[in-house]
């Protein structure tokens, strides 16, 4: 039986050890809640609206690598690919709360929804106001009229960037929530899977994909996408992906976007750059302006090969939050 070769200690401790390594890599900016699989900023301003994110581990640098100024205040880390438990989320909630309420921002998966909802009820019982924004940017997961059934994928990064900047600036939880909801309405992603990643605990691959096929729209955990097909050329793939994205969120001349290429793990920059060349030709034809391009491994699925394209339509308000300086393990702006 195939077992992925990986540099680990006891597979049962991967999450805890990884969080220790992450806190150390922050050189003081972030700390682990003692004994718990949660990270929080070492200094959180008084009176600020708090932003708490979280989800299953194994997608590093998401979520726990996105904590910092103008980003998240804390993150609750579940087991690999498993939503964090409610009591952990509750402890993280208490640790980041500064009297102005806490926004929960996370990917829209059954497990995360249920666990964060239970935690929110527990937090309300303790007098902490909580609001929730679920990220659902993956256009492959459901048709436009059932957006709330879509998964959260790479768009998490832009959502955290914008909600984090809003939470640092605005004084009310409702106002921060409104900004996040607006960002979500202007956000679309579509991914493509090339090779499977593996579960660190078992070394087993998370899905099967023939040696000469890819799957457009496959989720980060191997959830089925919109089309499995023979490996196409990069330009043809770019055309296909952009067609699906633009059908879901039409763009017109003069629109301005941020463009994110997210590497699921083992895809090369070379491949994504070659795809970017075509994507930019398509956008240029439409007269769409690209305000900023981000490319890298932000939301991974272990050593899975594949990538996604995310489009975020910007207006003046969103652009302000998008451009706000920020620094965390995953990136600096």
């Amino acid at each position, binding site marked *: 039986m195939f077992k992925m070769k990986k540099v680990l200690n006891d597979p049962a401790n991967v999450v805890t050890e990884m969080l220790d390594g992450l806190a150390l890599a922050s050189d003081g900016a972030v700390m682990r809640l003692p004994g718990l699989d949660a990270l929080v900023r070492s200094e959180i301003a008084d009176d600020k609206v708090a932003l708490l994110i979280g989800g299953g581990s194994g997608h590093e640098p998401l979520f726990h690598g996105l904590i910092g100024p103008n980003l998240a205040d804390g993150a609750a880390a579940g087991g690999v*690919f498993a939503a964090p438990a409610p009591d952990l989320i509750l402890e993280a909630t208490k640790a980041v709360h500064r009297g102005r309420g806490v926004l929960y921002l996370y990917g829209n998966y059954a497990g995360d929804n249920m666990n964060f909802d239970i935690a929110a009820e527990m937090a309300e019982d303790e007098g902490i106001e909580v609001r929730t924004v679920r990220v659902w940017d993956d256009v492959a997961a459901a048709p436009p009229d059932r957006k709330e059934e879509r998964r959260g994928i790479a768009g998490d990064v832009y959502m955290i960037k914008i909600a984090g900047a809003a939470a640092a600036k605005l004084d009310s939880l409702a106002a921060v929530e409104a900004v996040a909801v607006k960002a979500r309405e202007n956000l679309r992603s579509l991914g493509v899977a090339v090779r499977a990643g593996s*579960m660190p605990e078992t070394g087993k691959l*998370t899905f099967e994909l023939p040696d000469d096929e890819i799957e457009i729209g496959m989720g980060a955990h191997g959830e089925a996408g919109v089309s499995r097909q023979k490996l196409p050329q990069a330009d043809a793939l770019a055309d296909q992906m952009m067609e699906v994205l633009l059908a879901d969120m039409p763009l017109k001349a003069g629109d301005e976007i941020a463009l994110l290429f997210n590497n699921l793990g083992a895809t090369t920059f070379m491949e994504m750059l070659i795809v970017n060349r075509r994507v930019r030709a398509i956008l240029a034809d439409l007269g769409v302006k690209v305000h900023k391009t981000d490319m890298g491994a932000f939301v991974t699925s272990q050593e899975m090969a594949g990538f996604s394209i995310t489009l975020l339509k910007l207006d003046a308000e969103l652009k302000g939050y998008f451009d706000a300086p920020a620094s965390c393990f995953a990136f600096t702006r």
Partner: protein
Amino acid sequence: MLAVAEAVIAAEPLLTDADRAIGDGDHGIGMRRGFLGVQEKLKAETPETPGAVLKVTGMALLSKTGGAAGAVFGSFFRAGGLALGDAEEIDAEGFRAFLAAGRDTVMKRGGAAEGDKTMLDALAGALSACAEAQDLRGALAAAAEGARQGAEATKTMVARFGKAKTLGERAIGHPDPGALSLAIMLQAWHESADHG
């Protein structure tokens, strides 16, 4: 309940493989983590009534499992245990009340219903199979078999919740991992009641 924990922990590879087929391959790992927590808690706390045992089980699952399964099975046992109040024993009636209360809570929490290819299908099979049972042993035997059939029936279903949702037709032929888990739990409970 310790026997149930043993059985679920032992079934890890089977559950993980089932989740690999139509989910993200972590179901066995999560259930194992959760029931190791249950074992620890039950050994430390030794609750007195069946309701209390089930409640402690639910709390441990809720805090240790993570994922959809933690919320689902945690809520299930916790709410089901609460429904038993502080009765000293469970009878057939109590057992049915436990299953029904658990089902209602899971449905409320997750929004799924029978036929959506989740553990609720095994649960529905269990509930209807034990409807006529007179005593706990009979109810457990019937429920275990009903859950098995309910889990089997999920093979023919298309998932509407959880990570298998977008698989659509492709999920057909594969059983739901959470439904398998429930069937394993009830089977282990039934066997330990028969032998102990």
